[in-house]
């Protein structure tokens, strides 16, 4: 039977990389005594499908893990697993995965990120909106052949909203977060601070993935 676990990555779990998280899940399932299907071959490992790696320092309200188990009731598995996970990983839901439900690959398209910026006290919502519309958002990354490639992060972004508060600016940005295309939210936040005049000198306080955007 296939199951889909939806979970949150909170608090100090944001310092744990995707690779370490995989180890944590493998051990947690063993602790919970939830038997899972293993791959065959020389070093068998559980057949887990995770949502794409979440960067370090980013928390999330909506991560996924698909697994197969011969164990029956989803409720039971959820209860057992909840006790076996380290603090900071909270289960949203655990449910059997129906035949025609979308695979994670098909499901994950874009996600909404809440980026908190500090040190931009005088920013106004309208200015920010206008500046963003005019901005280019170029981001330089090292490409495959170790060559620097400049991409326009706007191409991987959907709607972007700003909410300037007294001490912080909240940015709600829809960014590509699928298996083959993804915009690193920290890169997006950093580029915002560089390119938008009212955000010059601001720094990222926190980033959280808050929801999923369905593919059109």
């Amino acid at each position, binding site marked *: 039977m296939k199951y889909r676990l939806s979970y949150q990555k909170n608090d100090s779990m944001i310092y744990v990389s995707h690779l370490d998280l995989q180890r944590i899940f493998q051990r947690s399932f063993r602790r919970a005594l939830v038997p899972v299907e*293993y791959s065959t071959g020389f070093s068998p490992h559980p057949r887990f499908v995770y949502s794409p790696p979440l960067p370090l320092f980013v928390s999330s309200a909506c991560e996924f893990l698909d697994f197969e188990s011969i164990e029956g009731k989803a409720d039971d598995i959820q209860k057992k697993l909840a006790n076996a996970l*380290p603090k900071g990983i909270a289960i949203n839901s655990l449910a059997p995965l129906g035949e025609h439900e979308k695979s994670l690959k098909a499901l994950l398209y874009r996600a909404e990120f809440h980026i908190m910026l500090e040190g931009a006290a005088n920013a106004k919502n309208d200015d920010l909106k206008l500046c963003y519309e005019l901005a280019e958002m170029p981001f330089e990354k090292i490409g495959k052949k170790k060559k620097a490639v400049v991409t326009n992060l706007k191409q991987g972004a959907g709607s972007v909203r700003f909410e300037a508060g007294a001490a912080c600016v909240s940015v709600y940005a829809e960014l590509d977060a699928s298996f083959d295309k993804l915009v690193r939210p920290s890169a997006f936040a950093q580029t915002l601070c560089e390119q938008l005049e009212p955000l010059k000198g601001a720094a990222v306080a926190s980033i959280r993935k808050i929801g999923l955007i369905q593919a059109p």
Partner: protein
Amino acid sequence: MSIKETLEKKILHSVEKPARYIGNEYGAAEPKEKASIRFALAFPDLYEVGMSHLGFKILYHVLNSMEDVACERVFAPALDMAAKMNEHSVPLYSLESFSPITEFSFFGFSLQYELSITNVLYMLELSGVPAFSKDRAESCPIIVAGGPCCVNPEPIREFFDVIFIGESEESLPLFIETYKSCIASGEGRQAFLQKAAGIEGVFVPLYSQSAKRAYIKDFAKAPFPALSPISNIEAIFDRAMLEIMRGCARGCRFCQAGYIYRPLRMKPLETLLDQGREMLAQSGYNEISLCGLSSTDYPYCGSLIQAFTEEGRVKASLPSLRIDTPDLKLIEKSVSSLTFAPEAGSQRMRDAINKNLSEEQILSVAQQAYEMGCKRLKLYFMVGLPGESDEDAYAIADLANLILANSQKPKLPHSLALSVSVSCFVPKPHTPFMFNGQLSREALSERIAAIARRLYKKIKLSYSDPASSVVEAALSRGGSEACAAIYEAYKAGAVFSSWSEHFDYSQWEAAFLKAGLNLEEYAQRSFSYESELPWGYIDIGIDKEFFVSEAIKAREGICTPSCFESCSACGISREGKCSFEV
């Protein structure tokens, strides 16, 4: 801002491996609100090293099992982290409750290797605690040390208020009780220290003249941590560690652990099966290591491995294999990669160190392993052993060459990748070689170079740095005058000295000089059998006469049988013989 907030807001984003510094592991103790005694248990190395240490896990468990005691973990922050902590005025803190060390009653260090001592001073400074015991105020935490390095308290005596000798699981309960009663009756620090000096296994530099090692007599009932904090990032040893035995019956003359953990004690098979199963279930690890100095001496090793591997998807492993292990296949499911430690190349030297292994045995086991499918074989050797000549060093290369040549005779589809690892011998207190000085740095380097020249090109050679072994030797058999040298070395910037990338010989050389000592001469000094040794007042349980007789037998190349075969009356058992029934 609290320490945790400062970490999250200002620090962790800009340091390497931030998860080292934030705790929150599955299995970590909940901070006990009502505990009257708070014990900060420290490992003077990086998080992932300390989290891999079995003794550390045991003590954490023992202390947290005591009512009224809350034990929390502390590790040495890497240099980038320490710089950030200083920048933001964050003192060293515990991982469970993010409390500054100065809020604890005790700050206890596990000293596993000599070169980690400067990290103690580093951690004390980060905590705001004076380096020297004499400078500490009444309200300061009591600074404690334990672990194998403590069997010679002299070079560290000025830094610690209390030094545990032997197995502190045994002495801690009374130690803590004594502290409690002192608190209850309003007695101060000095009164407590004076009383603690009377506990077996406890040495208080200020008040003790001598101390006797404490050890667990009924090992089957030894405290056992079913669940220890499980690192969220990869620890060096990321697996369940089941201690199947303590001590060793073999009596290799170079090996300090082989003497200071005597007698050999083993847990019953049923106990180990239960404990192993419980550990695996509670931790979720998929690997279990059967820990012990010479695990294959445990008579039911094969049964344990079989049981654990068959019951779940678990890999059971042994930390080391003896060459005279009766049945390789039983022990190791997969022999594709094996490690053996002949320790010396020539028969003469193997007899001198009491390795009790013949060349035929070594050659035949290596060949057997290869024919069973072993593709990678690693051999461990030492250079600089007392009485060693150039020829003995050449014999290391000759033996390895012969093993490789033999493997090429049968036409098997796979070839053998042979590697040789050479470490520099360091004479240690409470061993028959404690009287001997260390070989000079030049001579050690020359022996290693000679091996490299002689070894077939196809054999990979790795070796330890003679320079760091000189410092290790100076510290391990040092007297109290070495305290000043250690302090100078720390002041000159020597931290993480056990990491080759941080080790700087010139720093240590200069520090010894400042303390009025010549480092190399200090490491090379030898003691006569009659002389009063710096650590002579520590009673490890073994008679000095036994060590002297072993030293003489070493010189003459005479072997001593293992305790299994016959008792050599080392002094541990007053009845004249230990029982090894499981």
